[in-house]
């Protein structure tokens, strides 16, 4: 049974459309990323899911119901606009959210200390949050999200403000939880995070659902196959029939759709027959970053030009 069920979900702010006709399921233990350019409706979708804003139309069910605080499904939400009780002590804030999610005070205390030790913040437990650095505050906020061992994690740009070491550490931390069956909804612009942490991906464009599928399928369906090779000398004119993209001296690439009539094999055969001294040859799918640029690049550029 789907833990999260969304059908024909729309949210309008007056005449402005936040999201329109969104629908998907997320099974318990599954992880899904929501991606899209700024203003594409990601945060609105998350807010509708959690009941933070009332949807204009459609159905949003979490574990079979419109989600309300106090429901058995525990949710750890890290919002995009995050803040803290700045003057309160780190441990007190973590305890508070632990108890709000049903832990007794001793369990909340234990879990808070455990998290702080894991994050290397054990010595800061009794400091007021405002005395911490931005990165440390971000870790405390993530701690708030994880308190009470939520069944569903909804993380909006979780690694914003993290250095690469902390990003890697955080990704490992989340991956451990998803491997234990925690469901994850990840909103991010970091495509590497999507690749590392989620199985499925939802592309939003201008509030509408542009694509929904597995990360692997998205690369195939929205991306391209890149056959890249390196060579010595010049390419003979014979090869000019191929729509190659020269990428500097001795480097070229053929960009094509998956399954287009064994193109890499034919290209390599032609290069050999033409006497080109090929020193390297590989075929790979687009990365998610390339898929993102390929999907949204043109429309974003057009918007930039209009706004200019």
């Amino acid at each position, binding site marked *: 049974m789907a833990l999260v069920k969304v059908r024909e979900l729309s949210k309008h702010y007056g005449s402005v459309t936040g999201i329109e006709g969104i629908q998907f399921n997320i099974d318990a233990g599954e992880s899904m990323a929501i991606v899209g350019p700024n203003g594409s409706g990601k945060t609105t979708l998350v807010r509708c899911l959690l009941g933070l*804003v009332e949807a204009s139309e459609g159905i*949003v069910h979490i574990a079979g119901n419109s989600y309300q*605080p*106090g429901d058995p499904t525990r949710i750890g939400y890290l919002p995009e606009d995050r*803040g*803290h009780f700045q003057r309160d002590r780190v441990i007190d804030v973590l305890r508070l959210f632990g108890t709000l999610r049903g832990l007794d005070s001793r369990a909340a205390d234990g879990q808070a200390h455990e998290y702080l030790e894991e994050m290397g913040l054990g010595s800061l437990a009794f400091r007021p949050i405002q005395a911490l650095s931005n990165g440390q505050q971000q870790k405390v906020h993530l701690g708030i999200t994880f308190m009470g061992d939520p069944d569903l994690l909804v993380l909006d740009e979780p690694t914003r403000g993290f250095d690469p070491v902390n990003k890697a550490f955080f990704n490992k931390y989340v991956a451990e939880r998803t491997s234990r069956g925690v469901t994850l909804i990840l909103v991010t612009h970091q495509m590497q995070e999507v690749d590392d942490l989620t199985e499925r991906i939802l592309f939003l464009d201008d509030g509408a659902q542009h694509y929904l599928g597995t990360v692997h399928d998205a690369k195939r369906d929205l991306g391209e196959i890149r056959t890249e090779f390196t060579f010595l000398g010049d390419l003979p004119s014979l090869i000019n029939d191929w729509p190659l993209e020269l990428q500097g001296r001795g480097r070229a690439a053929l960009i094509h759709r998956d399954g287009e009539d064994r193109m890499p094999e034919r290209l390599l055969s032609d290069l050999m027959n033409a006497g080109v001294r090929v020193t390297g040859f590989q075929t790979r799918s687009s990365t998610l970053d390339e898929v993102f640029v390929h999907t949204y690049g043109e429309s974003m550029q057009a918007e930039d030009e209009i706004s200019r």
Partner: protein
Amino acid sequence: MVPAFMILLAFLVQSSESAIRKSSDVSGLTTFAFHYLDHSGLIDADLARRAGGSLATDVDKAKEDVKTGKIRTLIVYPSDVARSKIQIFENNVGLVADQKSTALARQLLQMSVARTVDSPQILKSLTASVEVDRAGYRNGVPDLGLAAVAVPMLFLFLYFTMTIFLGNQIIGGFAEEREQKIREVLFVDVTASSVFLARMVATTVLGALQLAIMVIPIVVAYFAIGPSLGLPLPAFSTWVLDSSKMLVGFGTLLLGVAMMIAVHAAVGAKIKSVREGSAFATLFIIAMFSPSYILGVISENPGSIAVQTMTYFPLTAPSTLLFRNALGNISLVELVISTTIVVITTVVTTLAAVRVYRGGQALPRKAPKS
């Protein structure tokens, strides 16, 4: 901290007051070392000596001694005190030195002359200490004046104090929550309505507790050490405890504070910063105090349009009611209508505030339209 500081301050004031009081003798005459010359012949030498005075013989030399600091004060009484002024030459030390010697010069003259009057009637008439017994009536019954309004007015004082203190706390609390962007995270775990109402109640209880902690020690200290400091104490024995006025005062106080808390909370739910909130708080305080500006009209012409408007306008109603309850010029009908308006305003404001606070949050179990 504040109460402890106030108590410490009171003790310091008390000790310095004690030192000052040592410079008065049993007859109430101010005493300190001074020199005097008496051209009038009215000054009682014995009284002057008891006040610390020494008779000077050479006025020019005495004036020179004042300039050089050998003599602190020289008082010269003229031969005709009805036409000429008493002259005082003084080496100034403190800010109030002048007033002290002036008082002494007058006191010494008055007390010296009083000693020469044989008739107690003349003496009492001249010193203006004849007592007056006044009987006042209002609406056909004896009017006890300030004694009758003291207790009901206490409710007004409490209303002003609690509203200002709690209003600021509530607006500050909500604004801080908004500025620190913690609502969204909270609202996933607790409904906005619960957070709002809990914050209102918690802030009110904590604020009232803080207020009590600050005020009670000051009041206790005032009554404990006030008499020894010479502070005026209320004449409790003359206060009239009118049960109906006290009941109305207490009820109006509770309703008024509840309404003002709701109004402040509604503003707190909407504002984005403390600064924005303080502008609204100032408006509420002006509205709350505005009946004080027409107190004369309230006491003498309660049927006037201004008083009637303030009786029924929600933000001014509680303080107007409390004034009129103290003055005893409010009718039962006016009281019922006005308190009903206050109650309705409280309920409507609270509901609206909850709605504003939760923003567009979905209501419990209300599925989106499909």
